[in-house]
């Protein structure tokens, strides 16, 4: 059973800000509810006033603008993202990551913005957004601010969002031209599970040089981009040496834990295996 709750469903951002101001810490945003209702049921979530944002038209945008990039509003479901041919072609790493989340039914409700606001270390969309260098547009009664996604997560289930603030949308800039993106997710079963380890990679050419970006889920308190591993790959040597250097650095930067999905040792090994696999693919394709 769910605890006692109050519910409101504002139709505009102004109304939303009023509700948030009135209830402060007691209020919690309700998007698809696929995380929130479970944590309320488990009494992990303490908030008791749910503010449903699904009636706010402004949050419903899914739009691509040349130059600016892709805008994903707070109420855009994973299903809509998956159905976008443009996202599949232009942002394959994001498309692949979204595809791995939950199942077809869940994707009818679950949102991308909910996935990052929930701030699970296992959030599958996060590594993809990290390598794409997405920005999070945050609004409140006071105004708005834009934060790079790698500054957004602050701990397990914690973000930089302050009381009264709401994520309006995520903006994903134009990826480097001719880039190759991929998300590798290791699960206990072939579908419908959180990642034991997930790795997103983006490869592209800067002049003739191959550059890579690497980000991980389920290996640290927050989803994690590991720039040191990217740099280790960039330095001299044969392709094999560069890959092994990146693999070593990545495995030193993660801090996995043991849980029902896998031991810390296994996760550490997966970080190496998946990083190596991903980099080899990028060397071949890009």
């Amino acid at each position, binding site marked *: *059973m*769910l*605890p*006692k*709750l*109050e*519910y409101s*469903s504002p139709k505009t951002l102004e109304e939303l800000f009023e509700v948030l101001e009135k209830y402060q810490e007691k209020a919690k945003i*309700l998007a*698809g*509810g*696929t995380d929130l*209702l*479970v944590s309320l*049921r488990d009494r992990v979530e303490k908030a008791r006033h*749910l503010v*449903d944002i*699904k009636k706010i038209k402004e949050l419903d945008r899914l739009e691509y603008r040349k130059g600016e990039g892709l805008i994903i509003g707070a109420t855009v479901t994973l299903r809509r993202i998956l159905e976008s041919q443009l996202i599949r072609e232009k942002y394959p790493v994001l498309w692949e990551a979204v595809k791995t989340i*939950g*199942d*077809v*039914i*869940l994707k*009818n*409700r679950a949102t991308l913005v909910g996935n990052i606001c929930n701030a699970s270390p296992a959030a599958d969309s996060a590594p993809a957004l990290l390598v794409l260098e997405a920005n999070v547009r945050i609004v409140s009664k006071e105004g708005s601010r834009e934060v790079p996604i790698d500054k957004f997560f602050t701990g397990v289930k914690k973000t930089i969002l302050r009381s009264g603030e709401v994520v309006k949308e995520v903006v994903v800039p134009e990826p480097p031209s001719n880039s190759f993106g991929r998300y590798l997710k290791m699960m206990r079963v072939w*579908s*419908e599970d959180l990642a034991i380890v997930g790795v997103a990679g983006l490869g592209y050419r800067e002049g003739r040089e191959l550059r890579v970006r690497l980000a991980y889920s389920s290996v640290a308190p927050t989803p994690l981009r590991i720039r040191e591993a990217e740099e280790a790959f960039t330095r001299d040597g044969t392709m094999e040496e560069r890959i092994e250097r990146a693999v070593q650095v990545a495995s030193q930067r993660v801090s996995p834990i043991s849980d029902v999905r896998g031991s810390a040792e296994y996760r550490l090994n997966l970080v190496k295996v998946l990083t190596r696999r991903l980099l080899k693919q990028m060397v071949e394709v890009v």
Partner: protein
Amino acid sequence: MEKKKITFKINGVEKTVEVAPNKTLLWLIREELKLKGTKKACERGDCGLCTVLLNGEPVKSCLVLAVEVDGSEIVTVEGLSRDGELTELQKAFIEHGALQCGFCTPAFLIVGHWLINRNPRPSKEEVVEALNGLLCRCTGYRPIIEAILSVSKAKK
């Protein structure tokens, strides 16, 4: 806890009820409306057995609040057949033995109908993908998949 008045259509019939905001759509269907075809099991979105159609799309009703469905249209397994006549898919489930204990059957029928409606000739892969949010612990899934595919073939 203040109750809210909501109006919605379920299986073609309009209803207005008052519900507390902490009640789920699953509760609304089973306890308020006494439609027991929709099953309650894990109540955390894992098993999918409470799946119903909300405005034509499948949702896990344990993860939707009753107050959220104000103004919406809901279809449960009770709403699939017409004038006492089983649908082609329901008949195919019987022919293929696509059930044993039957507990998961309403959810598989709901998703099966949804799939066939939007994609009259799904491939086996598409069927498997559509079903992957639903758990069955008797059949091993194969007869369910075959039942759905038999209906899609029949439509050719």
